[in-house]
């Protein structure tokens, strides 16, 4: 459009930050008011996202709402924001999860205003990652998201919080260094930091040529590309996480307050997957193809080992932490399978759509489950062991009902959200790599066992007398939890709403595969 448009994407980045400032300005000692301001701001973000959705043209390919200005011309760094269907879906997820996290019971310790403000800062950083299309800008948000996350774990976490926070920070940052060096090498060869331009160069073969010119004499362009790919893959794999780079996760998820874990799994892990889709697939399809057996093996290991590990846990949060690794493993499986050359019509589309949908579904389901855990924790004085409870169904039927639905959604029951995406992934992977799909199946069984164990140990059985005064959900909690569960049904029954949204992105990304 010719007229200068309102920079709605920038507004989306600034709104949470402005709200954070507003929260810090509310008087101390009035957590209700502070939380009201924070919630108001985050709901306004959601409204902005819905506004974007209403303006979004799902029939068009490519980027929309682009905002682009020079930033550091000497390095060819731009302030470059843009939106496609995948981004919009992720913004929608973030727009839903942040109010849910803010509505969850506030952790008792320390200054609640700071907690709320940090959650809002985290939202701004994550949105920045989803919207940025120039590596330097993207990396800025990617790294800065660590600070609020670190502080949220460090200040409000459980007894092992220091170690968990430290481990989380160092581990992710080590990954980032690998990624940074990889991108610098790409920049030196091509002179661009722009994701879209890099993808185009990769598709036309100019990337390999440029690498050849810069490093060919040293070790061969393909080897250099493989090395760069390794660095970037490492950075992203830590974030998701993919086994064997996952060891920071269970501690961080278990020690963080549940409302923070909600965001860690619901949003922060999606930053890694988003990177796989936006960066790795379009820029490095050949290395992905070359290493496919290894990567598929790692994805399978992620799926199987994490579901087994979940089975061995006695702590609700750790169980769900491993379950998160498991669910994101399906995304990785789909992603790595999709690069296979195939003649089967629609297999790639299915796997790719499944991956994207699974990102949303896992965020929604895991977010809701950790929301319920936070409710349980606030009533039990912080307990979250599997054997600390029993028979809660009798005293808190609504909580158990809603959380039960969440657990079934996590299991992939038809009619609920998880089913559609996992089905699509399996359908795609089965045509592309039948053995991989078959090998992943036992994980579904393990998942079913541990989720049912949660149901039976916590909700069913004789009521633990200690919890006879356990309160069921308040009206506000019913609204929040109910909305999340209702959305699970909506996506489960009408997946077309989201599939329609992401379809252009799916086609766009498949375009880059050989």
């Amino acid at each position, binding site marked *: 459009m010719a007229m200068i448009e309102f920079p709605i994407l920038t507004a989306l980045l600034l709104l949470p930050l402005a709200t954070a400032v507003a929260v810090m300005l509310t008087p101390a000692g009035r957590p209700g008011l502070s939380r009201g301001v924070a919630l108001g701001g985050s709901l306004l973000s959601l409204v902005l996202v819905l506004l974007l959705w209403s303006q979004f043209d799902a029939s068009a390919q490519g980027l929309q709402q682009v905002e682009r200005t020079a*930033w*550091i*011309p*000497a*390095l060819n760094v731009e302030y470059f924001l843009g939106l496609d269907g995948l981004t919009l879906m992720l913004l929608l997820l973030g727009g839903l999860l942040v109010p849910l996290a803010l509505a969850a019971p506030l952790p008792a310790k320390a200054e609640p205003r700071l907690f709320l403000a940090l959650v809002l800062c985290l939202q701004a950083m994550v949105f920045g990652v989803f919207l940025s299309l120039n590596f*330097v800008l993207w*990396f*800025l948000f990617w*790294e*800065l998201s*660590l*600070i609020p996350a670190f*502080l949220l774990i*460090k*200040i409000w976490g459980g007894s092992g*919080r*220091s170690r968990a*926070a*430290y481990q989380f*920070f*160092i581990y992710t*940052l*080590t990954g980032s*260094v*690998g990624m*940074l*060096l990889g991108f*610098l*090498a790409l*920049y*030196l060869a091509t002179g661009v930091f722009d994701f879209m331009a890099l993808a185009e160069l990769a598709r036309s073969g100019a990337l390999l040529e440029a690498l050849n010119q810069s490093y060919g004499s*040293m070790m061969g362009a393909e080897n250099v590309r493989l090395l760069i790919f390794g660095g970037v893959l490492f950075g992203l794999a830590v974030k998701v996480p993919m086994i064997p780079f996952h060891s920071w996760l269970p501690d961080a998820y278990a020690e963080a307050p549940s409302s923070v874990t909600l965001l860690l799994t619901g949003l922060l892990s999606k930053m890694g997957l988003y990177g796989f889709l936006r960066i790795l697939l379009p820029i490095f399809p050949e290395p992905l193809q070359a290493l496919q057996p290894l990567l598929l093996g790692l994805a399978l290991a992620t799926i199987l080992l994490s579901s087994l590990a979940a089975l061995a846990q006695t702590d609700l949060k750790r169980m769900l932490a491993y379950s998160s690794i498991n669910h994101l493993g399906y995304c990785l499986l789909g992603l790595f399978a999709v690069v296979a050359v195939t003649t089967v019509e629609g297999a790639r589309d299915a796997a790719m759509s499944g991956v994207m949908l699974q990102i949303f579904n896992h965020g929604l389901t895991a977010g809701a489950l950790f929301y319920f855990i936070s409710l349980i924790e606030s009533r039990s004085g912080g307990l979250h062991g599997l054997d600390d409870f029993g028979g809660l169904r009798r005293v808190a039927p609504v909580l158990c009902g809603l959380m039960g639905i969440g657990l079934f959604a996590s299991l992939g029951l038809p009619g609920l959200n998880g089913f559609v995406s996992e089905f699509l992934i399996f359908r795609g992977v089965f045509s592309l790599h039948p053995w991989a799909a078959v090998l992943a199946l036992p994980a579904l069984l393990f998942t079913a066992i541990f989720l049912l164990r949660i149901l039976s140990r916590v909700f069913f059985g004789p009521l633990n007398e200690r919890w006879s005064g356990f309160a069921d959900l308040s009206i506000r909690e019913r609204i929040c939890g109910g909305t999340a569960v209702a959305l699970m049904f909506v996506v489960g029954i009408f997946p077309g709403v989201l599939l329609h949204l992401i379809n252009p992105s799916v086609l766009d990304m498949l375009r880059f595969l050989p």
Partner: protein
Amino acid sequence: MIAWTFISAFMGSVVLLLLPSERKALARWVALGTAGVGFAMAVLAFCKFDRSASAAPFQFVVEREWIPSLGIGFHLGADGISLVLLLLTGLIAITGVLFSWNIERSPNRFFALFLIIIGGAYGVFLSTDVFLLLVCYEIVILPKYLLIAGWGSTRKSYGAMKLTLYSIVGSALALAAIMATYVVAGQGSFDLFTLAGADYPAAFQAWAFPLMFVGFAILAGMWPFHTWAPTGHVAAPTAGSMLLAGLVMKLGAYGALRVAMPLFPAGLAQWQGIFAALAAFSILYGALAALAQRDLKFVIGYSSISHMGFVMLGLMTLSVIGVSGAVLQMVSHGIIAALLFAVAGRMIYDRTHTRDLDELGRLGLARKLPFAAVVFLIASSASMGLPGFSGFIAELTVLIGTLDSLPLLLLIVGPAIVLTVAFTLKALQATFFADGPVERGTPLDPITLPEKMGAGLLIAATLIVGLWPMPFLQLILRSFDSPLMRVLFE
């Protein structure tokens, strides 16, 4: 006009020495005013610098005779590199005064010495006569000693003596090399451009370059000539540490860039690999040593060695992008080190009288001094090189340069970056967010207004350079067009 930066500093210091020592408040205001004038001059020069393509690379030129019989002139001039460092000097001067507002023991003498160092630094960054540059370089040494010996803490006479000896050895090496150069050039002039115009035999360059470079690199804290830095930083009073880490180390790097490198391109090419390896090792060594420290100031002291390693590495890349990154890193590290030392020395040590990480952890500082906690968090983030702060863009450009010309060194630098994050985070956790029981103890004095203003200025500076690096980068890049600097990249 530009000469007023250091003339005003020296005049201010004379005025302060003449003041009766009981007029403490007046002394502080005189110091702040003098520092402000210098900074204003630097900002004015930054704004008035002609950036058009046809403009001369060195501007605000002053050429006066000084000792004509020896060819020594009073030659001043500023290019982009000088300008950004002048801005840094002005900023450190103002914030150094603000963070020394609480000095009660003869503040007039304290600030007089402080301003002499500032004046010397302005002089080094402005001189285009090598002899004048070296004189200014040496002016700094004595007041440094007196500041530490008079107002320092922890083993102050040892720290002051070691620092002084190292500085003297360094400038003696540089002086010897410059004398030899003067003779070999045979032009009878110490003017930088005249010296650069002469031809030096390769055999001469092969030993004169390392002599001069090491002479300057000692002050830049390059391994293995670094050991003065941590002890000196720790012994110095807060403003002294800010000056040492923020400015004095830059003088060494600036000398190397401005004099040693352009004069001897052949020697430089010969020694590039060795000095680059030493620089990369400084980065790693500083980070490892910092990880092992128990004293907060020692952590920051060793981190300075690590960060200055980036400066030297950037210089040794001999690529436009790497050298510009080195200059940017000088500015960035100046700001960040000053901020870190201000928190550690002024905000924490002056109140708690301990810098031991274990003892600090028991004090529950995050609650008692929330402002200091936030400032230290920001300074730590900047020091780790997180994007958005000045350290990121500076280290990024150095890394690009390194990848371009010395890719193998990244095997050393990559792990060092992770270690930097590890020790910074460790210090942050131990100081402000330690677990375990908190001693009640007496409440600490609240953070004062001068401290808040000083911290605000430095934080704003690191954010400005981090988010809008272009104005600075452009100036630095412009200065590479001058015949003097161009030889580095040929």
